[in-house]
């Protein structure tokens, strides 16, 4: 009991420390000061009166939401003597693997840099700055020559690294037996199986109504939809993050999904957010980064070719170029197993005081990265708001999809969970696929790395991401991958090669996500 209390006060102290000096803090102080003029504030009961004023005017709720946000990104409590690396990633072998993967990426980036003779960063001449400012809203019209640039890595390269991960303490040399793991991931982590998922995700059960199933055309809205919408409106008007998150588990109505997600993520569009975005935009105008070309290439290769996302091309540049320059993103590396790459000012290699993080936000984009942003364009079109929401989604969820960690939402756990779920649910299918050289993970990996963006139709994808936010976990992505295989099991049993298995699973655009999940977990 003592420990719990001690843990709690540590948490409280951490959150207070983080919020102190934040903009919200100064706003609250200002509000408290100004309300002293109000008639209902009496000197005898100053503290209580100011408190009730803040509550009535909605400021207490804003503070609650801010605290709630901090709780989300707070790492789990660790041993007081543990070094900071443990907060990033407690398992040593994972840290080592991540570090060597990072070395590889950086090497690839540096060699591209030298080969092409393009500097990592370059100040733009004034004329170029002017041109870019004029073209800011239509950067997609540019057709720069990107043929020399290659993506730094593609998901399949990353998959090879994950497959080769080994825990030195775990002997998995036993052959293929009924009780062994037939998949590609060779390590063992604690991932939830179906009974555990049922317990953790009760709102997806057959007896619980939700959007994506119970709002179907032939079901009268009175049964669920109308009431759900009414509650949603209330949640939005109360501006309550925690309530919004709980609500999202049953799906967000199209009409106010944008507000609900912003609420859950506590992504605001206050003047200071807009100003921050404008500063980032100015940074883009002043300096050209090598990674900008990688971003251009990625957008042109992925989003621009998509039937539905091509329209948002310009927004993607406006978000991703600014994202690369946002040093506020560096904060998340305290709980991300990854470490931002360092670069040296020319001529001073090795001198620690001349290192600079590159790119400024520490995140090197890979092939398909822009697909994290594309679905959000469907909801937000003011660039600063879109940016705000994307950044928060990244530092809470997306980063876990491309860094090696033991987190239950990390890509390693998701891969393992996917394989285990499929093997336990449909052992015949799994055995057949691995026997013909079509390991399921080889197909499902690309879906999971992108959280299915670009593979599902937009409305279905948004329903899936509703649940990622609602349950604050990416596990649902692994479950969906297994559910997709289950759905196409009959056809998959007939195939005889990896290529034909890929063909069966090539087009997911007609799938309905919620029924698949529900049937997989509860039926």
């Amino acid at each position, binding site marked *: 009991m003592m420990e719990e209390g001690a843990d709690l006060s540590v948490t409280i102290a951490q959150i207070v420390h983080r919020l102190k000096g934040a903009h919200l803090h100064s706003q609250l102080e200002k509000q408290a000061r100004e309300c002293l003029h109000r008639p209902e504030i009496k000197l005898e009961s100053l503290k209580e009166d100011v408190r009730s004023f803040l509550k009535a005017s909605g400021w207490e709720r804003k503070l609650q939401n801010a605290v709630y946000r901090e709780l989300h990104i707070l790492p789990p409590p660790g041993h007081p003597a543990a070094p900071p690396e443990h907060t990033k990633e407690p398992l040593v072998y994972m840290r080592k693997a991540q570090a060597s993967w990072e070395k590889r990426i950086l090497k690839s980036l540096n060699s591209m840099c030298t080969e092409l003779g393009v500097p990592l960063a370059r100040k733009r001449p004034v004329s170029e700055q002017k041109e870019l400012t004029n073209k800011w809203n239509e950067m997609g019209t540019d057709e720069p020559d990107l043929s020399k640039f290659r993506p730094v890595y593609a998901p399949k390269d990353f998959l090879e690294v994950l497959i080769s991960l080994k825990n030195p303490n775990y002997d998995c040399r036993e052959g293929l037996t009924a009780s062994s793991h037939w998949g590609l991931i060779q390590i063992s982590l604690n991932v939830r199986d179906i009974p555990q998922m049922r317990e953790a995700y009760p709102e997806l059960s057959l007896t619980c109504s939700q959007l994506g199933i119970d709002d179907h055309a032939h079901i009268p809205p009175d049964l669920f939809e109308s009431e759900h919408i009414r509650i949603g409106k209330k949640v939005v008007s109360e501006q309550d993050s925690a309530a919004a998150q709980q609500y999202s588990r049953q799906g967000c109505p*199209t*009409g106010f999904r944008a507000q609900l997600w912003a609420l859950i993520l506590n992504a605001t569009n206050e003047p200071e957010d807009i100003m921050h975005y404008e500063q980032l935009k100015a940074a883009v105008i002043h300096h050209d980064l090598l990674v900008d070309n990688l971003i251009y290439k990625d957008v042109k290769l992925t989003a621009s070719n998509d*039937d539905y996302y*091509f*329209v948002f091309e310009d927004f993607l540049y406006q978000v991703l170029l600014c994202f690369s320059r946002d040093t506020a993103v560096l904060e998340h590396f305290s709980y991300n197993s990854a470490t931002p790459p360092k670069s040296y000012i020319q001529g001073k290699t090795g001198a620690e005081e001349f290192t600079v993080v590159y790119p400024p936000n520490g995140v090197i984009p890979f092939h398909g990265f822009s697909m994290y942003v594309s679905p959000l364009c469907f909801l937000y079109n003011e660039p600063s708001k879109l940016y705000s929401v994307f950044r928060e989604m990244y530092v809470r969820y997306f980063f876990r999809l491309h860094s090696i960690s033991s987190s239950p939402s990390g890509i390693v756990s998701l891969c393992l969970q996917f394989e285990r779920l499929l093997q336990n649910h449909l052992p015949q299918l799994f055995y057949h696929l691995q026997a013909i050289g079509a390991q399921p993970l080889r197909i499902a990996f690309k879906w999971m790395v992108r959280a299915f963006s670009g593979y599902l139709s937009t409305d279905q994808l948004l329903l899936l991401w509703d649940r990622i936010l609602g349950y604050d976990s990416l596990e649902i992505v692994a479950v969906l991958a297994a559910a997709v295989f289950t759905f196409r099991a009959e056809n998959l049993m007939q195939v005889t090669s990896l290529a034909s298995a890929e063909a069966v699973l090539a087009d997911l655009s007609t799938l309905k996500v919620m029924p698949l999940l529900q049937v997989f977990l509860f039926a």
Partner: protein
Amino acid sequence: TFFPSQQNSIGYTLTSLPPNSDSPDREGRSSVRYKCSMINSILDVLRQRPGWVEIKEDGEWDFNWCDVGWLRENFDHSYMEEHVRICHFRNHYELTRKNLMVKNLKRYRKTLDREVGRLEGAKCDFFPCTFELPSEYHLFVEEFKRSPGSIWIMKPVARSQGKGIFLFRKLKDIMEWKKVQRFSLNFEDQRDEAPVESYVAQRYIENPYLIGGRKFDLRVYVLVTSYLPLKAWLYRDGFARFSNTRFSLSSIDDQYVHLTNVAVQKTAPDYDPEKGCKWQMQQLRRYLTAKHGSEAVETLFKDIDNIFIRSLLSVQKVIINDKHCFELYGYDILLDQHLKPWLIEVNASPSLTASSQEDYEMKYRLLEDTLNVVDMEGRLTGKEKRVGGYDLMWNDGPVYREDVSLETLGTTYQIANTNLGCVNDRRKQLRQLLKPFPGHKRS
């Protein structure tokens, strides 16, 4: 197989089903002889319809999917038996030629103003201010001078020909055009396709609704099976066509011959209105709902319904009604930034060529359901409010959804029976609605 395969046609002796017990005068046919002048998706639909046989030479036909040229030359001299169907109305151009459409709408509006009141007439303000040239030239100049600085668009009425469509801001920009017109009229043969009144000048919508900085317009399909009384169906599917370039007004400041983004596309020799990127209507509807909320979008779609109904009512008394005729119109609608829909034009021969697999499937469904509504096989009772993806929008009066819940009882508020951009679960609906084709088992 029992039914004709794609290439060969097997002749049948004409038989007809016993009349449907619900409507004694609807005789269905188990074999339909058709003519088709197109080689796109309509031909595929016709060929794959059980019991339908293609007539290539000058044989007798029961159904003709013809082009407007054929209609113009042959309709007046053809005798058609009672059951025969053809896909155009004789004088459809009252609705589909820009100058005539505007003339009819203006006249209809005046009638409403006079007989019902200005409020009712105001419901017709869904087309931009338009003048026929040269006949209304002076009226046009008056209006032009009243709103200096605004942009106008010049369009040939029948088709994009010669210089085609262009934008202008100053009167002097069209002085050249005027001279050219007089020149060509003097030296070219007078053809009845190029009458003197061959252009319209229209206020350009300068604030279109943009998505991703791009302008788009909507293509919506409306099927009319009768004008007197007016019976019109609205298809749930459709699409939004995006221009490839970002919208900008700055390029009009060049000479009038420099055509803008949209106009460039329209006058390019390989202009294909179906090329360019598209969103399915359902995607657009969801996007707008996510951005503006469901109430605003429902209002928008109600306003769009209003465009169809009023444009059809405006020509109702002018179109030569003929029980043999039906027509599938392609409406082009533009949205502005205030989510107000504008009628750009109505096409009597909307393109049935597909630009992608998804597009092909949509047009296939559309045409299949069109044939289901026309119902040569006599499988419908005539009382249906929905057939596949078509919802009955107007049946000599507005058609409402039947939903009478406790809240709506006693109130006058009723929901229209239209579902543009909504889920199109047509296969299920058709299974429940229709008997299988003669000789076919229910699959």
